[in-house]
């Protein structure tokens, strides 16, 4: 099953409410995905810096890592703790040392995402608990994507939770399952991409990262995925300034969208949209099969 929610704000005044709106949407999709939940939020960022979101293993106090990281990088840096996740904001020069430190500590600290603006939080548990643990309601930003998972193909683990990120500021959530993901993964590995799970959705994320690294737009990357990815899917994708939706050619998995002057919103079901402000005045529509819908902030 699985549930997806997505929100792309058109009205800047709504940015302080992004997290609150997203977390309310996420909770409505608990019945579709009670196993785990995850969220990607595009918040404030700096062109010269990278935010590394990391997950700290159970039994290790995230606070205790702050001084260790400062020592490894040779300078104090901003570290924000949100439950089991920490976000390091580093300069592009410091990024390599931070990743070196991460490799040394990989038994205890896992890489989740990197980007100027994007932070990803995901954990096993009921969506309501996950949203509360991470304080999603307090997050500000321009757009965000959330996922509630009912695992069918692989174990209920944090690594198997969505969103998946395979490139800076890029993330994907997926409802469905792909049938040719092993073949596509091998192709992408030969192209130099690395994957951290056996999950089919991570392959879809990697595919888009690969296309965009070749210079394709988000829209064109999704269009070509219709030829190269086999299976059933509804994808919702985020980039630093973009937000896109694609359903497979027979539209197996549910999707509904709303657009108003304030926002573009996506939900697996209308229930997810029903909690949004002024939804009764938004244009509610169902995305067509095999059609790319994309929005970008200029």
């Amino acid at each position: 099953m699985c549930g997806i929610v997505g929100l792309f704000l058109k009205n800047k005044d709504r940015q302080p409410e992004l997290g609150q709106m997203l977390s309310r949407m996420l909770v409505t999709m608990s019945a579709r995905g009670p196993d785990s939940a995850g969220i990607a939020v595009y918040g404030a960022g700096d062109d010269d810096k990278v935010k590394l979101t990391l997950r700290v293993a159970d039994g290790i106090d995230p606070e205790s890592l702050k001084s260790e990281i400062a020592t490894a990088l040779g300078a104090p840096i901003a570290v924000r703790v949100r439950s089991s996740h920490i976000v390091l904001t580093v300069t592009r020069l410091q990024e390599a040392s931070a990743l070196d430190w991460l490799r040394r500590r990989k038994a205890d600290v896992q890489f989740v995402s990197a980007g100027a603006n994007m932070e990803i939080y995901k954990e096993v548990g009921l969506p309501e608990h996950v949203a509360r643990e991470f304080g999603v309601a307090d997050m500000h930003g321009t757009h965000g994507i959330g996922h509630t998972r009912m695992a069918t193909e692989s174990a209920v683990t944090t690594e198997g939770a969505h969103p998946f990120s395979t490139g800076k500021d890029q993330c994907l959530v997926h409802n469905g399952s792909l049938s040719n993901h092993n073949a596509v993964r091998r192709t992408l590995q030969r192209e130099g991409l690395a994957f951290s799970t056996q999950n089919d959705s991570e392959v879809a994320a990697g595919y888009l990262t690969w296309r965009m690294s070749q210079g394709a737009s988000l829209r064109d990357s999704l269009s070509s995925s219709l030829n190269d990815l086999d299976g059933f899917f509804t994808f919702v994708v985020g980039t630093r300034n973009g937000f896109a939706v694609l359903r497979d050619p027979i539209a197996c998995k549910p999707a509904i969208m709303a657009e108003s002057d304030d926002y573009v919103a996506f939900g697996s079901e209308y229930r997810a949209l029903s909690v949004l402000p002024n939804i009764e005045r938004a244009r509610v529509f169902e995305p067509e099969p095999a059609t790319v819908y994309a929005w970008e902030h200029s």
Partner: protein
Amino acid sequence: MPTHDLNVTPVRAVNEALHGLPPDTNETFWQIDNPQGKHAIGVGIDAPVDVEINGHVGYYCGGMNKLASIRIHGNAGTGVAENMMSGTVHVMGDASQSAGATGCGGLLIIDGDAAARCGISMKGIDILVKGSIGAMSAFMAQAGSLVVLGDAGAALGDSIYEATIFVRGNVQSLGTDCIEKPMTPVDRERLAGVLHRAGLNGEAKVDDFRMYGSARQLYHFHVDNIASY
């Protein structure tokens, strides 16, 4: 007049109250407020009552309906009026996929558009869509009429049996074994009947529709048709 607010009363309690109605009930007008996209509202009613649902509904609203007239003042999710036996379900907005799926009788009216697979495997229901319908509609449709004032998406009527499709707008493509057919006087009467029952008296002319049905080449397996299955 029973009125239920789904922010207060669970869907299951409202459905149980509707299921408990005797055939000669005097409680013939029901209001349901704040549906908020909840699933299975008004499923399995078997009484001649009017039900007004004020807002958007989730999956399977009005499923298995017998006798009741259900009006949805909003959009409907997947499978509205699925397996309806008799009565009327009227969606005043758009319907999601599989509207009227497997319906055996009654009338489903959709004022807006219906998404993919409208009337899939319909078995006697009549469906009237004032907007357009999505891809793969009337797949394996067995009996009843699907009337569309707008356009139809790809693969209309794929593997259709004896249901009849009337479309006023464009058809993107026909599915396997579905062909356009000339309308006989009986067909014209049937179409006029559905338009009349849906309250469209004179707004849509029978002459403006084209009719589609089965070529009857796939009823039985034949090796020459292997590529079409």
